[in-house]
């Protein structure tokens, strides 16, 4: 489903990704963890080309990404209808209702009829537990509700892969569970997902594999039982040790 080969990216003189190579099979859920500034979000954003890269190649959902694609390249249009993304800050469109947010891309990218797009959107809202909020504007929703609308918006494209960039970091603890629950359901349904997260419990319970990313590369890659419980590298040991000390 996803194959990343020797991915390199620099911001000026600083190397952000230093030759990342990895594969993801269909139906896997990858938890991406690691110290901040290590390159987790950058890697995720390269996967749908929100950020370009300097060397290497990515194959994802049938599209091949190389350095230097133009923003209007048709490869990217195809890619983005197969790869959904959820942001830390939700990034809902404030001038549209929940329903408007979800139906926008199907209607103008996939040219779905209004009726079909709205029927699908209502089903998605029901799936994330917000059937009654179709007509609400983002500012009328709590953070957790906004993030669930954002997930529904990404799912409306019927993606093969979902990317989550710290989906619960901007939420109050009591709202995280609702969002987690939605992601857990997606995992059970067999969606291929990559989730940048700081939630160790979540990584442990849901992920099929955990990547520890540090200094621009995947330092450790394995099932959670191994990576979280018996880390082999110093960075993973230190990271999980600190997490364990700070979270109950």
């Amino acid at each position: 489903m996803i194959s990343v080969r020797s991915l390199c990216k620099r911001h000026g003189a600083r190397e952000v990704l230093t030759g990342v190579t990895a594969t993801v099979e269909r139906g896997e859920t990858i938890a991406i963890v690691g110290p901040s500034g290590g390159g987790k979000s950058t890697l995720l954003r390269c996967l749908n080309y929100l950020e370009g890269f300097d060397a290497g190649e990515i194959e994802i959902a049938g599209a091949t990404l190389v350095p230097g694609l133009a923003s209007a390249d048709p490869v990217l249009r195809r890619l983005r209808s197969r790869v959904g993304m959820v942001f830390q800050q939700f990034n809902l469109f404030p001038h549209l209702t929940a329903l408007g947010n979800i139906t926008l891309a199907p209607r103008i990218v996939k040219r779905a009829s209004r009726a079909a797009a709205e029927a699908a959107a209502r089903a998605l809202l029901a799936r994330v537990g917000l059937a009654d909020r179709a007509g609400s504007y983002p500012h009328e929703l709590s953070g957790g509700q906004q993030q669930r609308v954002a997930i529904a918006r990404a799912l409306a494209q019927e993606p093969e892969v979902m990317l989550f960039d710290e989906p619960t970091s901007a939420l109050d603890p009591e709202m995280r569970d609702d969002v987690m629950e939605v992601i857990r359901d997606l995992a059970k349904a067999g969606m291929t997902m990559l989730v940048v997260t700081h939630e160790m419990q979540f990584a442990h319970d849901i992920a099929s594999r955990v990547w520890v990313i540090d200094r621009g590369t995947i330092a450790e890659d394995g099932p959670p039982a191994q990576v979280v419980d018996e880390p082999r590298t110093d960075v993973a040991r230190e990271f999980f040790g600190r997490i364990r000390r700070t979270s109950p």
Partner: protein
Amino acid sequence: MTRLLALVPLGIAVLAGCSGEPVHGGTLAAIRQRGEITWGGDVQGGEPYVYEDPAQPNHVIGFEVDVMAGVARRLGVRARMVQYAWSNLVPSLERGDFDVIANGLEATDERRQRILLSEPYFVYAETLTVRTDSDIRSVFDLRGKRIGTLNQTYAYDILRMLYGDVAKVYEGNEEPYTDLELGRTDAVLLDNIIADRYGCTAQHPTLKCLPDDVARGTYVIGVRKADPELVQAIDAALASMRRDGELEQILRRFKLWDARQSAPPPSEGHANLARGFDGGLVLQFVAAAWVTLKLSVLAFLLAVPIGTLLAVARVYGAPPIAGAARLYIELFRGTPVLLQLFVLYYGLAPVVSLGPVEAAVLGLGLNYGAYEAEVYRGALLAIPRGQSEAARALGLGPIQTLRHVLLPQALRIALPPMTNDFVSLLKDSSLVSVITVIELTKRMTIAAVDMRGWLIPGMLCAALYLVLSFPLSELARRLERRLAHDQRPLAL
């Protein structure tokens, strides 16, 4: 004198380069004691009246300078000209700022009720200018024709008396004849000094001045009511100048001498045209307000898409496109809209002959487009980056992202400054009177002269501007509330 109030639209005292110490008026005795007679004039009236010597910019010349020098010599004193805006000469004389007025002051019944007038020193004639192929023979052939003149002139009064408010009113001496040549008008009625110098010249081979005078009038020297002995002394001096041929020499030197000067002076033909407040006046104001509204709305409808394109080009365009947009903005924002209107209407006339309303809409639209562009650019830059990332992640292309995500949000941000700009445009639209469109402000200045007062026309004008702008502000406020349903003021 021809340009009158047009130069100082509100008639507020403008002391353009008044030289030296304050000048106190006085009687004939005071003048003799002082050894100097001061006289008020306005160099903006230009050649041949009183104007700055091209060779010596601080020195004034003109036939009235020479006439006053002759008068002063006969009184045994020197003459000194004092610069005042033409429209303020009479009140300034009454206040005592100088001794006499000698600057194209027409002898009229009305004026005679206010100040003393000397014998004439010049006889002018209202002259009709037409194209050489025209079948117009006299001022009585003008029904249904398009006629140009200057505002607040005797010619304007004659046309109003004969045909009502039909004249196309210009602000400068050259433009009426340019438009006549271009076929935008059928005839121009102005006094012979202007017609000879600007109309029937080698620059306009297709124009001719009809030989019959439409009317004649005289220029006289104005004196305060309290100084009858001064007006007698001036009359004696003028009679002496006429007898010994000095007046003729002066007029010949300025190519102003003609048979009219030796003919018996014309009677004072000005009927009292002062106008009262009536329903017709209100209708004219309402019609002018409609012109203002129409111009402003059309210009703004042009400015909004231009501004949007320019803003998008500046924010998202490749360097050459962004640079071109910036150049446009700097050019149109950095030069006066008045000049842009002139270029569009007169400058481009040989290439595309735009009607005055089209030129006005285009000029204001192009100009305001530059301002709107900066408003929209600011609005686009104020949208959080995550919005365009989310749109791109959903597979929207650049144009779709702009249209469905960024521009709707930019509109909410831009709406208050846009409302501001529209109200400002509503008032700026008064500038189009320079290209002969009569809108609300122009209607007010015309009515103020016709009614000999500013109060009623001014209040009517202000009321109509408010009637236009307030509902628009209200509409914008509602639209803003509807669009910006999630925007709450930040707590302090």
